[in-house]
């Protein structure tokens, strides 16, 4: 598959901006993530792919602080933030565009952005700059967002996160509920976002879209990491196998480690499972 025009800077050494280690996360008694690790370097577009229920959103929410991991650590910009409250992470520079947009229904478009800007760090992004990025917003800024289309809402949600001037932007399932052409347009904004110095960690169900924009990817299956590497280094067959869970289409029951050949060298070791 072709790599996107946005290649990460060739130099990936140095400290990662986001360093997640051996994350184990539970939903009640259900284990959602089993020992996930990832490292995101500045300027990257890191994509997490996987089927429904793989744990992708859980991973992002845990990084944002909305879930507490049972085990593991999250290190952001050299500091351990595993125990930090979500709002503190936001002001430190981790902004998330949550799954389903989650705009404030009783607030207007502009008010949504204003809320995002309330605790903003200093940086290039302002409400005006967001209007430059999405010109249609300016004249509709006093409208309630509940009357807007899915794509428009998604743009507002992104704008709300950008306005805080984050260093890491977490995008959770941007394509959900959007027509492909809209989705492509939204993803087309990524270069401008990246050029302002923002690093992106995204979760995406649409594999081809993810592969188009990602500089690095990891595939999750039922809470385990099944593939990790750069798009240029993996084949379509590998991705498919990692996504569905076996060398054969149809997949196999969870719990058993995927059979050999699919695990990229950087994949974390499997822990014991139920």
């Amino acid at each position: 598959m072709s790599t996107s025009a946005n290649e990460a800077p060739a130099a990936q050494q140095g400290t990662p901006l986001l360093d997640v280690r051996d994350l184990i996360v539970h939903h009640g008694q259900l284990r959602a993530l089993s020992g996930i690790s990832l490292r995101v370097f500045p300027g990257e577009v890191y994509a997490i792919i996987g089927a429904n229920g793989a744990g992708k959103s859980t991973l992002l929410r845990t990084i944002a602080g909305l879930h507490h991991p049972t085990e593991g650590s999250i290190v952001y910009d050299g500091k351990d933030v595993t125990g930090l409250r979500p709002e503190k992470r936001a002001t430190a520079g981790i902004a998330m565009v949550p799954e389903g947009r989650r705009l404030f229904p009783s607030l207007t478009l502009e008010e949504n952005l204003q809320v995002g800007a309330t605790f903003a760090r200093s940086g290039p992004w302002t409400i005006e700059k967001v209007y430059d990025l999405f010109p249609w917003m300016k004249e509709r800024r006093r409208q309630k967002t509940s009357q807007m289309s899915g794509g428009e809402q998604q743009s507002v949600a992104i704008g709300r996160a950008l306005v805080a001037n984050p260093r890491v932007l977490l995008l959770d399932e941007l394509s959900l509920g959007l027509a492909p052409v809209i989705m492509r347009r939204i993803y087309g904004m990524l270069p401008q976002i990246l050029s302002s110095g923002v690093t992106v960690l995204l979760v995406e169900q649409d594999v081809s879209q993810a592969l188009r924009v990602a500089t690095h990817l990891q595939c999750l299956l039922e809470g385990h990491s099944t593939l990790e590497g750069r798009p240029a280094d993996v084949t379509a067959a590998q991705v498919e196998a990692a996504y569905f869970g076996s060398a054969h289409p149809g997949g196999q029951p969870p719990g058993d480690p995927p059979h050999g050949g699919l695990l990229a060298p950087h994949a974390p070791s499997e822990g014991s499972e139920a």
Partner: protein
Amino acid sequence: MGWVNAIIQGILTGGLYALFACGLSLMFGVMKLVNLAHGDLAVVAAYIGIGVIAVIHIPFLWSVPIVVAIMAALGYVLQRSLFQSAINRGELTTLIVTFGLSIVIENGLLQFFTANSRGIGTGSSLISSSFSIGGLQIAWLDVVIFALAVVVLLSLQYFLSSSKYGRLIRAVADDREAAQLAGADYRHVFGIAAALAFCTVALAGIAYGMTTVVSPTTGTDTILLFAFAAVVIGGLGSLWGTLVGGIVLGVAQQIGAQINISYELLAGYIVFLAVLVIRPQGLTTRRSQS
């Protein structure tokens, strides 16, 4: 003429009831907290006012901002500590805690102040007098309180719609998690909202103490019930609805009193029950909604 007088009186009383109700409505709207101690806190405010005047000997009007400030601070602290812990543990616990608070306050007041009722001396002859318009006797105090209610509602509306914290309060009320992701500490925002609600509660208590006397049980006997009735009648989620509800309640009561003096309270209850049956908008959701 008595009827017109009754209706006017009812409308003006509606202002007082709106004052009772808007704090209750605000706290529910923002943090989904039904504060069963709401009325008792208004009584506490009245007692604080009485105490302040008795101790510091300042003119009545000066005591008002002091009481409001004290109650606002109390509201913030209570919200961050007691209420937040209760909210974290679920709606059942919240009700138990606020109910417990109500009983503790009532009996605490009973213990320290006895069951005697007290009033707040207004001290100004202007306020305690009345004037006449075309044959109607209208007390200045009632007009002032109504005006106060309108001012409070206007201020609240302005604050919520145009200020930074007003926006935050609305955002947190809409979607707590999304607000956290935007950097807002929702516990602090809740605290601000509670402080705001307690300001109105303070004013409600003082206003009530000026119109009539308060006793330890007035909180639940009167204030909470009327506040709730006003919210029911006016519709949840609307600040101005509490004014409408208050007016309807007040008018119903006065009309009832015109028919027979002992029907005053009963008439109010009947209207409340009728609305409950016919149009309980906004009060009815699936009970497991958190």
